[in-house]
């Protein structure tokens, strides 16, 4: 029996030749594995393709995000006028607790179990590399969080159109809020996955993520309130750096002009630059930390 050519085996796919039938068909390779893992984890974040029990929590949170918008839309269409009672981005910031709980509940589903049950070597015995795993998981969770944020926005927008509010005013607002949703999803997914990747124990990761997100948000609110009361406008603006929700809010309100419920945004052009730089740094740092984390798992 001639040995398998080992030249591209790692790149294309591993089929162990144990002496039965040969396989000469197409090999789907790393890109295919990455796509599969991405699709599987994005669906898994909503429990799709998994047991009914796992669908309950994400669907409940999804409903918690969407149901209030239905009420808002109905009220707005009855009372009439050109404006929704709540701004698009403002709505997301007000429901940040639900978003935080979703990230906290689903980030550990994505990565903690693989670590807890020690099956990372199984992933990496395939052509997949740590980079692929991190990219697929990260992109999938970001997609899932984005859908959670975009769904209520879309309902609000559709409701505004059905209530015959001016499209010219609502379409730009809706698109701006979607930019906020994209950025927030990427930042939150990064933070959630980093924390989850270091807390394999069931429950602990959930608590850690939600504690960090809510404490940051609480600190930000309190610090900003103090600074506004003291008349320190610049300081009040920079307190937005503390929480991911206000950080991304600061970026989008200055760069694309989203509505914002916060009393102070980044002060001036320098502030905008700082907020944007910090956002980019957070995302890159999360990605880097995840890569490092999984380099070590392969070594072990």
């Amino acid at each position, binding site marked *: 029996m001639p040995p398998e050519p080992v030249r591209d085996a790692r790149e294309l796919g591993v089929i162990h030749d144990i002496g039965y039938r040969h396989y000469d068909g197409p090999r789907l390779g790393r890109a295919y594995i990455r796509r599969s893992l991405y699709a599987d984890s994005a669906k898994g974040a909503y429990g799709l393709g998994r047991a009914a029990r796992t669908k309950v929590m994400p669907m*409940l949170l999804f409903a918690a995000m969407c149901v209030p918008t239905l009420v808002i839309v109905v009220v707005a269409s009855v009372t009439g006028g050109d404006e929704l009672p709540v701004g698009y981005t403002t709505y997301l910031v007000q429901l940040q607790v639900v978003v935080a*709980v979703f990230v906290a509940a689903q980030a550990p589903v994505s990565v903690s179990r693989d670590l807890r049950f020690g099956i990372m070597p199984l992933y990496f015995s395939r052509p997949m590399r740590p980079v692929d795993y991190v990219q697929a998981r990260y992109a999938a969770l970001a997609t899932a969080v984005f859908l959670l944020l975009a769904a209520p926005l879309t309902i609000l927008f559709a409701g505004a159109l059905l209530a015959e509010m001016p499209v010219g005013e609502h379409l730009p607002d809706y698109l701006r809020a979607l930019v906020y949703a994209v950025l927030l999803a990427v930042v939150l997914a990064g933070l959630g996955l980093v924390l989850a990747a270091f807390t394999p124990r069931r429950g*602990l990761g*959930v*608590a850690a993520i*939600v504690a960090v997100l809510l404490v940051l948000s609480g600190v930000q609110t*309190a610090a900003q309130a103090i600074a506004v009361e*003291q008349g320190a406008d610049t300081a009040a603006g920079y307190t937005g750096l503390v929480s991911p929700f206000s950080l991304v809010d600061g970026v989008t309100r200055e760069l694309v002009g989203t509505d914002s419920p916060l009393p102070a945004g980044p002060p001036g052009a320098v502030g905008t630059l700082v907020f944007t730089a910090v956002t980019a740094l957070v995302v890159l740092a999360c990605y880097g930390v995840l890569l490092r984390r999984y380099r070590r798992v392969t070594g072990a």
Partner: protein
Amino acid sequence: MNATVARLTARSLLGRRRALLLLLLPAVLLALSGVARALAGTEEDLAVGLLGGFALGTLVPLLGLIAGTGAIGPEIDDGSIVYVLAKPLDRHSIVVTKLLVAVAVVTALGAVPTFAAGVLLTGTAGTLAVAFGLAAAVAGIAYCALFVLLAVVTRNAVVVGLLYALVWETLIGQFVPGAQALSIQQWALAIADEVVGSRAGQLGVTSAVGLPAGVVLLLAVTLGATWYAGRRLRTIRLTSEV
């Protein structure tokens, strides 16, 4: 009460990462209070906002959640609870022991720092600090009892607990006032309200429920949850679940 169970629980609760998380919360509260005091001086409105919103509204529920579910959840999860259950111990006493350890942790890391933050923010160990310290202690006990029960009943105790403590009590309570009648936070606030006395309304230390209702509900939830957790532990199923 059983000393060995208590020791084991304390050790697992104060394991490295969990302890880090548990310590982070009071540290943030005290740091925030220190900064607020340095910048804004002793302002009672600010103190009520921080103690009510951050300490009682976020810190104590989270501590109760981490300590309450952490006291028994991991053991059920990895199956090592059988070694405790196989001993000739009353299941109720196991639950009570674990609950007491969790309550001790939440009191030390939640109620005491809340009191300290109150002293820091108001400048004196006056009624505000005492009121919120007491409310935090009482709420901590009720949260622990509830979350120990959740950990016995479901594998997703932390997420379910979060939904209750944050989404129900905080978010839905904001928009639907009726939801506040079923909120440990509000019941504890009723006690703070009573301690502060006649100035409570002016300071904004008000609760959605009266004192008798609050105390009765707190007692009912704490005792009921503890008893039912013990009962559920008698017939617990140890199936592994993914």
